[in-house]
Every structure is written in C-alpha cells, then in structure tokens.
C-alpha cells in the first residue's frame, strides 16, 4: 500500500521532488466547490427534520428535481452532528441502484450544511398509509427483493444501516424503484464491536437490542426488514408499542417467550426475563400475516427469528424460493 512515492513519511528526496512539481509561485487554488451557492431553486419545504429542514428543489443547471437536507448547526458546542458526518461519509462510499444518491454537499454561511440528494416521489410509509399499501403480491415481492439487495450490499461492505423502517425506504413511483435512505445511524460493524446506543425505531428494533444487548451485527437489519415485509402485507406495523418493554411483550406474544432452547444465551442476556414477562405460547405469524403465500411466510419467519444466530442473512434471503418468480431482468434494468 505504501511506496516511497506516495508515502507521506517517505524519503526526503521524494518529498522534495513532489513539492518541486507543485506550482509554488503561482496563485493558490480557488475556493472549494459548493462552498457557498448551491445553484438550486427552492420549490417547497418538504418537511421539518430532526436536524433541520428538507426542501424540494430544482437544479438550475440540469432542470432535475432534487431533495436538499439543510442541517442547521444550532448548537455551537456540537459542531457538525456525528450522525450527519456518518451519513455523508457512508453515502460517499455506497454505490448501489437501491441506495439513494448523494449528489453533492455544500456549506452556506458556515452555519448550514446542505446535502443534495436525488429526488424520489415518496417513502414506503406514505405508500402504505396513503395508497392503501401494496395489495399486489408482485409489488411486495419486487420491493422486498430491492430492499434486500441494498441491505446485502451494505452488509458485504460491513455496513449496518441500524434504522430500517418504511419512512427510510424511498420510492420512485414511475419506475417502481426502491432506494434506502437515512444512514445517520449507520456504521461499520466488527465481530467484537460493542454498541452503546439504543438505535432504531422501537417498532422495527430487533429483540436483542430491546433486551439491552450491546453486541449485535447484521441480523438487526434483517429483523427490521422482516417488520417492513409484514407491514407491506398487512398495512400496519406488526407490533406497535409505546416503549421497549411493551414492544418485547408484543413480540413474545407473537413468537413465544424465548427459552434457552429457542434462543441460547437469552438467560444471560436477560436474567430477569421470566420475572418481567409471562411465558407466552407463540400465536404464530400466520395468525396476523394472512395474505402471504407459504414461501413468503417461510421467509418472514426466518427474518423474524428471535435467536439472532438463526436469523437469515440478506444474501441468503435473496436466494429464497419466495423470489423464484421475480422478474430479475426488469429489476436489473431499473
């Protein structure tokens, strides 16, 4: 990786040679690109986000619709919020048809960091709530395949999304194209990495996180994808609770209270499990998710498996029999 020419602590001679090549007596380089004006015409304020406002804009040069997230650095003590740095740096590295494109980053008045994204029509939450959810089984299948493709790609690069939910899944309506967005909580994972935040929205949060485990991996994203899958089919979140404890109770009612047999290590993770939670017998996914073909139900049960070590991976999920009739050619052409 390091040779004498490129190494910044390389030999004295190579430093001298490299500097000699630079135009030391000429004018220095100009301002960084996009440091001030973004060359965008603001059409409307789309929403007020947690870090600032989101605008729907028109790119003056290309005439294309774009989405601009304007992050306001209101807290002097904080600087650029860590989640924003993470999101931007990750999106600079992630290049996939099913991941939203970050077009450019700009700065205005040393106070706003502007993130310009490709524009998509709406998110999956809006699609489910306002459009009567995708009743067409093939649309569900296509959306699921695309979500899993993006997740598998992220995991192949050792990146966890950590906040998958319908509002973070964007849709290009005309192309029926799905794109993952909002990588603010995302990060690289390692096998021995301990995470110290309760991440993600509780309705889509994996049971191991709800159980206060600080050691988790790719499986947390698959649980969230399973929750999204179920929601697309039934038109509402599978388990809706106001806090983590109630969320876990809802999950245990659905899938049964875990034991050492069904989830090895659970008693160590939650020593007071049977004090806080009754021993529920599984109601079964099929009692709630009724309009799903058997292979789909099988895939869903493999995603919504309490034991993370037995939960299906994104890569394996893509090869599941449920996707046998997905039109791969049309997906590739998207």
């Amino acid at each position, binding site marked *: *990786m*390091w040779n004498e020419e*490129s190494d*910044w*602590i390389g030999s*004295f001679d190579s*430093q*001298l040679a*490299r*500097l000699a090549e*630079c*135009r*030391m*007596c000429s004018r*220095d*380089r100009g301002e*960084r690109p996009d*440091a001030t004006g973004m060359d965008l015409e603001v059409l409307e304020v789309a929403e007020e986000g947690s870090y600032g406002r989101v605008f729907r804009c028109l790119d003056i040069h290309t005439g294309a619709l774009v989405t601009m997230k304007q992050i306001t*650095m209101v*807290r*002097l*003590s*904080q*600087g*650029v919020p*860590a989640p924003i*740095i*993470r999101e*931007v*740096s*990750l999106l*600079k*590295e992630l290049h996939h048809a099913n991941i939203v494109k970050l077009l450019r*980053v700009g*700065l205005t008045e*040393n106070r706003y*960091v502007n993130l310009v994204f490709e524009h998509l029509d709406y998110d999956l939450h809006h699609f489910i709530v306002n459009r009567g959810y995708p009743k067409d089984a093939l649309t569900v299948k296509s959306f699921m395949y695309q979500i899993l493709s993006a997740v598998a790609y992220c995991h192949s*690069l*050792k990146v966890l999304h950590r906040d998958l939910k319908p509002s973070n899944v964007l849709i290009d309506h005309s192309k029926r194209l799905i794109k993952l967005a909002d990588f603010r909580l995302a*990060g*690289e994972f*390692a096998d*021995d*990495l*301990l*995470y*110290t*935040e309760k991440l993600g929205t509780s309705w889509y949060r994996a049971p191991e996180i709800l159980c206060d485990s600080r050691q988790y991996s790719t499986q947390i994203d698959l649980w969230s994808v399973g929750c999204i899958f179920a929601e697309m089919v039934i038109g509402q979140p599978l388990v809706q609770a106001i806090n983590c404890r109630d969320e876990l109770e809802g999950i245990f009612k659905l899938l049964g209270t875990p034991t050492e047999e069904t989830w090895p290590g659970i008693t160590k993770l939650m020593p007071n499990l049977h004090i806080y939670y009754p021993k529920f017998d599984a109601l079964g996914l099929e009692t709630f998710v009724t309009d799903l073909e058997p292979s789909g139900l099988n895939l869903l049960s493999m995603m919504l498996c309490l034991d993370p070590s037995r939960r299906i991976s994104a890569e394996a999920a893509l090869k599941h029999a449920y996707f046998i009739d997905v039109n791969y050619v049309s997906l590739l052409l998207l």
Partner: protein
Amino acid sequence: MLTAGEYSNHSWPLQPETSLTELNLPRVLCILSSMLEKLVARNEKLVDILSQQLDGLNCGSVRLGNSLNTFHGVRAPSISIPKYLERIYKYTNCSPSCFVVGYVYIDRLTHRHPDSLVTSLNVHRLLVTSVMVASKMLDDEHYNNAVYARVGGVSNTELNKLELELLFLLDFRVMVSSRVFESYCFHLEKEMVINGTGMKIERALTPKAMDDLETEISVEDKQSPSPPQIVD
C-alpha cells in the same frame, strides 16, 4: 488559545520528564507522536532548503498551497506533540483507534493536497480536529466540540470552523474500513521496527466504556473533565 507559551506548573499534572511509555497510555500515541515529530522536522527542513534556493534565484519566498491555511497558527505552540496527544487522550476519553483514524485523515489530506505540508504551525490543530472527527465516526458516545476545543486550546468557534474545513478538504470521505485501518496499523508498527522499537498497536476498533458519561457532554457539565488551560 493555542499559541506559543508553556503550561504553568500548577496546571499540568505530569512531570516533564515522564515519558508516554512510562504512563499507562496506548502505544499508538508513542508511535504516532514519534512519526509526526519526524514528519514536521523533515517538512520544516524542506521549507528552509526551498527558501534558500529561491532566495538564491531572487524568486521571492516559498509559497506553498493554501489548503491547510485555516489550520495555521501565527506561531508554533510550545506544547510538544507527545504531550498534546497525551492531553487529548487523557481528557476526551476517546478510543485509541481514533488516533490511528485521525492519522489516516491527515495522510489523506496530504495526498489530496500535496502542495500543503504538515508543519509545527498546523500539526496541533490538525491533530485535535482529526481525532475529534474520528471519535464522531467510531465512538457511539463521545464528547462534543466544546470539550475538544477546551482540551485542544482553541475556541469552540474556531474548532467548529476547523472541523468543517477538514470535512470539506477530505470531501467528507472519513469512513475508514477495517482493511484500511489494519494496513495503517501495520504501517505504523513497521515504522517503529525500522526505528528499533518493536511496538504493537492496540487493534480493537471498539469504543471505550463511558458508563459514567452522557453522550455529548458540554463543558459546563459537572461530569466533564476540566483540563488545565493552555496558557500563553
């Protein structure tokens, strides 16, 4: 502010002769400070040679690239690089990996802007900014800019400006994969072997436990450490 001057005797808890290795500090600090000191010394010698050559040719003074101008101080701070790294580690509680990743950022900067040199005028500001950004990337719980500013001897406003400058100079490419991290560790260790000290760097890319701290503690918070001021 981070300018020339000494720590007053009462404000710095360590005796001057205490070396990094004698303290219970991560080995990466020792390796990194040694390398940065050599780099700065070499770059300053380089600038001197070029200045002399240009003087002889009546070409005026050396004008290097202005990419790192924001990080330049008027004078070099009197605090040494080892002491400065030790100070950052001691008071910010960031994981040792942050120093390796901070080094990666400085390396990327010098490759993206090869006409700019790391010198005694900018090395301290580059270090505190790059370690702070690395901590934001790596550690789920970290101190905010106000604490880093106080530790680094710069104002909060200035550090915010330096952070933005670093991010834009790097085009926000501050993600460091495990593979790249490992190769930099190997490179740093190899450098120490060449210099006769076979040291291994702490490898874990794990955040340090900060059970007694809240995320994003401000300097006013009673739980936050109160580092000695860097005085003129």
